[in-house]
């Protein structure tokens, strides 16, 4: 069995936060990400979904070593990169790239698009200057922009075009792993589909492995192979995409699915919304005997394996 393109093992991030104290500030540990483990197999797209504050973005940034994890391991092709220093990390940086939601602030306004796309080649000292520019223009074409765009500047582009440039820049080094953090959230409906399709095509052509972070479940459904649901810093459910949509087990996953807007006015319904308390009390109770992998009975919820590829946070009984 080959190692997955990206694997996170027990990744955690804690921040100190002020919890009050008008006279003397008191600090508590805020656990933004709490022991997240997930696998992005080679040539697959994994969706990481959750709401703001779920820790999904922090997880994505830690996977890229753009934020230092408090504990846990990050494995790229089976090699642990979580403790590597700056210099040792550099070769791995070529293999992992990221695309953000707000591509406008991620593109240097003073650089032409050709320079922006060629920059990673420049940083890693690959190719001659001429070859770098040629490669950049080639990539602009590949993401659906004319070569003439090479001489333009970011402010001349629409949101969708900027996102194409961001994707070209991320992929020019031919990484094996791409983290895409809400890349379509700021885009118009008609353009969103273009970017999703572009990601699909490039993923298939290049055999890319993508961690796709999003709150948009409809997009996740049409793009990803597997979905990981995060809630309050923890993974609460993880399964093949269709299993999440059809047989989700966790109350939080179900509340997310229930909130998806209807596609047609005739499907309108009155919803009853779950509070944080009903989600907490609705965590499934499973007997250890029914699980696909052994788990210790415990009153505290743990992530258990219900079928070989479906894991859910549950309370395990004897």
């Amino acid at each position, binding site marked *: 069995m080959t190692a997955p393109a990206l694997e996170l093992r027990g990744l955690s991030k804690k921040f100190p936060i*002020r919890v009050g104290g008008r*006279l*003397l500030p008191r600090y508590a540990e805020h656990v933004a990400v709490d022991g997240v483990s997930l696998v992005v197999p080679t040539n697959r797209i994994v969706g990481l979904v959750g709401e703001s504050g779920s820790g999904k973005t922090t997880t994505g940034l830690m996977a890229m070593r753009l934020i230092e994890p408090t504990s846990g391991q990050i494995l790229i092709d089976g090699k642990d990169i979580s403790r590597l220093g700056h210099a040792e990390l550099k070769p791995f940086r070529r293999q992992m790239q990221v695309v953000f939601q707000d591509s406008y602030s991620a593109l240097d306004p003073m650089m032409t698009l050709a320079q922006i796309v060629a920059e990673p080649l420049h940083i890693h000292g690959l190719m001659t200057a001429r070859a770098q520019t040629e490669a950049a223009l080639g990539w602009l074409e590949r993401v659906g922009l004319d070569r003439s765009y090479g001489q333009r500047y970011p402010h001349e582009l629409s949101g969708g075009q900027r996102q194409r440039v961001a994707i070209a820049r991320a992929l020019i080094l031919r990484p094996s792993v791409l983290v895409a953090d809400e890349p379509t959230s700021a885009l118009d409906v008609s353009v969103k589909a273009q970017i999703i399709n572009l990601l699909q095509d490039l993923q298939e052509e290049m055999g890319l492995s993508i961690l796709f972070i999003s709150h948009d479940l409809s997009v996740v459904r049409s793009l990803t192979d597997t979905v990981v649901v995060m809630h309050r810093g923890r993974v609460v459910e993880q399964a093949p995409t269709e299993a999440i949509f059809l047989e989700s087990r966790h109350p939080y996953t179900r509340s997310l699915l229930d909130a998806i807007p209807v596609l047609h006015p005739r499907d309108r319904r009155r919803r009853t919304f779950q509070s944080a308390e009903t989600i907490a009390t609705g965590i499934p109770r499973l007997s250890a005997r029914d699980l696909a992998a052994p788990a210790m009975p415990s009153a505290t919820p743990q992530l258990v394996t219900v079928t070989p590829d479906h894991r859910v946070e549950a309370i395990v009984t004897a």
Partner: protein
Amino acid sequence: MILYILRRLVSIAVTFFVVSVLVFLMMHSVPGGPFDGNDMPLSAAVRAKLMAQLGLDQPLHVQYFNYMAGVLRLDFGVPYQSPGETVIGLLSRAWLPSLVLGGLGVLIGAPIGILLGMAAALKRNSWMDYLASGLATLGLTVPVFVISMGLILIFAVWLNWLPASGWGKPERWILPIIAFAAIPLATYARYTRSAMLDTLNKPFVTVLRAKGLSERRIIFQHVLRNSAIPMVTVFLPMFIGTATGSIFVEAMFRVPGLGSYFVSSIQSRDYPLEMALVLMVTLMFCFAYLISDILYALLNPRIRTGGRR
């Protein structure tokens, strides 16, 4: 908050110490001494005796500790240039003109600047805006002594309306007060204009309009209050800066204020006076900034009430 203030007080103490050492060293490392002036030739013996009397023959660090020991007892010594009184006595006398002229300058200049800035922000790109911006630019770019000279030339020399210089009768105050007011006026005009424009562009102002609030109420209750937070916090440091006297303005108008003593104490190597002035101004600025920061925290609900509930 208390912890924060304590931390700041410690940092003020450190600043005070560092400034005192630096100034003391610099003062003494400049060539020359209090009795080297050419207008007062002294025999070597007399000079040595005077130096011994003032303790200036001792090693520098001993002098420093002696001096600082005095400072901690609020004894700043005796100014060389006026041995009949203490430094404290001289300063408390010199304070008054600076405080009156500089203080009035700020108290008059700042409100006018605020009004100008407000008018400029509310009537953007009107003649009012250009006037305010023009005045602000003039006030900040033209040196004070040029302004002072201009004032003297126009009102004292040509129009002969006001006395050119001196201290005492209130009519002598008018021109220096105007000179002192220039910088606060210009600073506040610019500051108010940009703070107001900044607030006016905030989305919540549109929401207030959409609620049907009158423009007057939006400006005077909401926009002004939001813009005031940064404006309040620059006031105290500016007040200290102006009210401790300006060397140029006091020299131009021959006002016997603190600023003029700054010059004379350096010129005549009047070590005790020089130290006292520097330490006093340092301390006042430190406290002005501390109080401003506390005010900022108190005025800003985001800091006052802490995080989310």
